[in-house]
């Protein structure tokens, strides 16, 4: 065909048709990428891509990334009372008790020495504070006459920010800031501190081997329970990471998805018969049910979620009902399409034995659509686990709520990272589980048939 123009046997009209067809096709293959590019260009303008570069906060990205894998310890001295606190992430729950400071903080009388590593030494004393920075020199700060006097090698580099009221120094080793009310040093260390045991736990700061020994052979710390049980309950009730609440939230999210999907499937199956042309002879009823399905799908989960949370208040049941309503529309449509595509011969066969409508449906129809039905339901179960995270953020339940709360505070990024990892693991686990179940059940179903 491609050599058509050269062939003498073809009529000129046919070769003309082929040539214009090819020309149109060639034009199309250029026009489509051009149209796509033009649209993207328009979108870039509409989304103000140029302004984005100015608005983007790359320092936030730095905070986020460093928070993901490290934690910071605040060493704070109140300049009025002279009280020193050492607290992980500056939180009350992460404050070291006075006698058990970390080994990089030493207190001798009024003098506190903080070793930030690599020769970076911060000293708080009764006259002010000093920060020895290797390769630069010593930054010394003395409050004098209501102002802060700074002594540092001139000229001041960009990472020292000095005014009369506040001086801050940012180095790779840590951050240091001095104001009239307090002096504060942040030390950054890798890891998620206090993930298992908080500072007030007897198990804090023990290595894995020590913990193993405690769990197995060592005498009981608390006479009332075994060490292993004590250890697990300390982890479970951890006040910094709230493992119990997080586990509940994950469970709630899966529960929302499970309840919503299954209830929707159970309601949609009988309704689908009423919307399928081969089971519902009355056109008006069929039409009505189809429009109901369309309406439910068209209103969309977002709006159902809003309406339902007004009636039932925040919580997992509201989320489950929102998923249930939205998916009833989708399942109703898909199931009725599956019902219309069945093989009528099996139904005929059952009918010939004198079976009534319910028996025909049970024996002649359901076995045919079971594989489609199951695979759709399981696919939705998996995808609803993801939606339940979003719906949880709207209705206030499950891991979605914890995640949005952690993001809104804009400081607990390590918790955000923790939740993200958990959500991904949860969705992947549901994906694997539904895939496994699908293979098992559908193979079983085809074996039967």
């Amino acid at each position: 065909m491609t050599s058509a123009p050269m062939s003498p046997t073809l009529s000129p009209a046919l070769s003309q048709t082929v040539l214009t067809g090819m020309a149109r096709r060639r034009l199309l293959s250029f026009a489509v990428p051009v149209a796509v590019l033009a649209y993207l260009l328009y979108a870039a303008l509409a989304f103000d891509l140029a302004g984005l570069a100015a608005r983007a906060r790359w320092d936030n990205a730095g905070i986020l990334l460093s928070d993901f894998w490290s934690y910071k310890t605040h060493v704070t001295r109140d300049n009025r009372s002279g009280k020193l606190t050492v607290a992980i992430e500056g939180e009350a729950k992460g404050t070291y008790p006075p006698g058990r400071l970390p080994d990089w903080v030493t207190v001798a009388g009024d003098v506190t020495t903080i070793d930030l590593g690599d020769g970076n030494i911060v000293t708080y004393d009764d006259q002010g504070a000093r920060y020895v920075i290797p390769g630069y020199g010593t930054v010394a700060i003395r409050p004098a006459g209501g102002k802060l006097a700074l002594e540092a090698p001139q000229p001041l580099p960009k990472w020292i920010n000095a005014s009369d009221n506040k001086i801050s120094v940012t180095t790779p080793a840590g951050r240091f800031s001095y104001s009239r009310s307090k002096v504060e040093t942040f030390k950054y260390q890798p890891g998620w501190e206090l993930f298992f045991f908080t500072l007030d736990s007897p198990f804090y700061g023990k290595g894995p081997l020590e913990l193993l020994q405690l769990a197995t052979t060592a005498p009981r710390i608390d006479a009332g329970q075994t060490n292993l049980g004590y250890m697990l309950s300390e982890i479970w009730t951890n006040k910094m990471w709230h493992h119990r609440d997080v586990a509940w939230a994950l469970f709630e999210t899966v529960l929302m998805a499970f309840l919503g999907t299954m209830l929707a499937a159970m309601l949609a199956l009988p309704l689908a018969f009423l919307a399928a042309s081969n089971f519902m002879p009355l056109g008006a009823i069929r039409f009505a049910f189809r429009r109901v399905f369309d309406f439910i799908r068209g209103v969309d989960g977002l709006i159902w979620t809003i309406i339902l949370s007004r009636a039932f208040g925040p919580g997992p049941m509201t989320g489950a009902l929102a998923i249930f309503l939205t998916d009833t529309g989708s399942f109703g449509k898909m199931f009725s399409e599956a019902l219309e595509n069945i093989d009528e011969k099996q139904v005929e066969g059952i009918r010939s034995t004198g079976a009534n409508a319910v028996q025909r449906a049970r024996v002649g129809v359901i076995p045919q659509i079971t594989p489609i039905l199951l695979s759709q339901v399981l696919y939705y179960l998996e995808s609803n686990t993801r939606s339940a995270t979003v719906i949880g953020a709207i209705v206030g339940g499950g891991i979605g709520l914890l995640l949005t709360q952690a993001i809104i505070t804009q400081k607990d990024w390590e918790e955000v990272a923790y939740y993200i990892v958990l959500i991904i693991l949860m969705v992947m686990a549901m994906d694997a589980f539904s895939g496994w179940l699908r293979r098992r059940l559908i193979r079983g179903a085809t074996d039967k048939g």
Partner: protein
Amino acid sequence: MAQTAAGPLAAAPRALPGIQTAYLDQLRRKRMYGGILLVIFVAMMVSGFRLAEYRNAGGFLSGLPMLGAFPAEVLSEAWRNRANLPALFVQFLPSLVETLNIAAVSTLLGGLAAVLLALLSTRGLAPWPRLIPVFRRFMDAARAMPEIVIALVLIYILGGGPVPAVIAIALHTSGALGKLFSEVAENADLKPVEGLASVGAGWGQRMALGILPQVAPNWLSYALMRLEINVRASAILGFVGEGGIGHDLKLAMQWGQGRYDKVVAIFLLLFLTIVIIDRLSDTARARLVKGAGA
């Protein structure tokens, strides 16, 4: 039952009782398993629902009568102010366009990434077969990540606006479509690819000329389905994060009474848009798939 089994077994009547009991045994066992599974399933549903209700702020039965209260309140107020609706439609049209743009751009970008990922992770087509598991795992991770997670984190870095939503939805789309695309490409005929390879075509040429024409109808159909999903996702992301008609809806909702005409205007715009897009994509997909079959 026994009579239908008797036909082919007439030659060996002695085996019949054994087969019959075995069959009935099997049937009983199957029914028992089915019954146990059903009981477990019902127990899970009931206890799960009761647990969910217990942890909910309001109970199911006490909330049920109030289900209609909020829509009724909203609708009656909107009906009083129905004269405002046309003006409100015009007012919210730009944010609707923004929501649609977010969906379209993220479907386009995600779809293009999915094409690349699919070709890179399909056996027989991938230029680096050893890296297939890497691309597959990447798609799995992109699929598992809910859009809201990426969007909220990106809003912190990039500030508000539609770009975080686009990136979030596009990333998810690339994973979801990549898997579907790759399943289609696995069934493509490799003969055109071999033919092109024999005349010295590069990998890009082999894919563009040998594979794309075969898979284009199915891929387009999947991409259209994804567009439907993404329109909804972009509205929801607007509600939770920023940008588009979802955000306007949230503001109008927060205002509460007095702004319900706005709520209704946004509901209607969203509803009509979703229905129209569903319809168009349904028709287009039916045509695409039928065209491929002909």
